[in-house]
């Protein structure tokens, strides 16, 4: 596999922003750089986990199996996998983009991606903290609505994409 970097222009733009900010406020920009480094260090285990998980999925699930479990014919089980996956996934959303991109290339439904990404709003390890700040009732009601919202969002996403596809075909 040939290595092709994605987002190099975006990265250069961010470096440029840092350079400009450094001339405006060098102290704060240095602090931002330090903060960025600590974010990278904190995320390293998650990045490693995503790399291993992607490899495991690719190794154990052949493209046909990915289509079967997460493709158009996946049915209700596919939605449940997406909701469950979203709830148990850790780290920021962007850490999961490479894995989702890979699975999408192998036939993962876009509706399931939308559901997975919204279900990530439920953070299992942080639930006690949420209960402490906002109460048990708020946490329970919000979590139920997040799950419902995640499912509906995935369905709407597929509906919109289906309409788009249809109108393209009719043209």
């Amino acid at each position, binding site marked *: 596999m040939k290595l092709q970097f994605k987002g190099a222009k975006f990265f250069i733009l961010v470096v440029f922003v840092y350079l400009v900010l450094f001339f405006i406020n060098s102290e704060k920009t240095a602090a931002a750089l330090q*903060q960025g480094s600590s974010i990278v260090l904190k995320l390293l285990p998650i990045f490693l986990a995503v790399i291993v998980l992607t490899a495991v999925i690719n190794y154990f699930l052949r493209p046909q199996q990915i289509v079967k479990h997460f493709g158009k014919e996946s049915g209700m089980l596919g939605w449940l996998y997406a909701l469950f996956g979203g709830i148990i996934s850790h780290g920021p959303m962007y850490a999961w983009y*490479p894995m989702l991109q890979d699975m999408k290339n192998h036939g993962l439904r876009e509706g399931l991606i939308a559901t997975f990404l919204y279900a990530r*709003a439920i953070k299992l390890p942080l639930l006690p*903290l949420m209960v402490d*700040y906002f109460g048990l009732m708020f946490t329970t009601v919000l979590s139920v609505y997040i799950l419902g919202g995640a499912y509906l*969002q995935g369905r709407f996403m597929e509906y919109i994409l289906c309409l788009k596809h249809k109108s393209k075909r009719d043209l």
Partner: protein
Amino acid sequence: MNNKAKVSFVQALKKSALGFISMSPMLLGVIGLVAIIQTYVTPDMIRSVFGKGLFIDTLSGTFTGAIFSGNPAVSYLVGGELLEEGVSLYAVTAFILSWVTLGFVQLPAESEALGFRFTLYRNLLSLITTIVVSIATVATIGIIK
């Protein structure tokens, strides 16, 4: 597991690592922007956005949360403080929800990985879902109480 299978898993791992490394400039760019926002935007600046009525506050909560990306625990902390200062629960719910479901700074990375069309629709739908879920949550709590 036989030798052939072992080699294939190593290949799968290598392929996965290369795929991840190819996205690294984009991910590092997003992390760089997140760090700038976390350093330059203070909790006081976030507080100043609120206090302009229920509807505007809910929209402000959604958009302010969408600008940030970081540990969700921070959103609970800021959200708790906002509640104590009299900001409505609708706005605070929208704020903590959009913090984890939307992310303006990660839009370029999402678009690169999952496509522009998908990113546009998903973020628009997330914006609407966040507002609806916030209103439904607070209304339901009101009915139960």
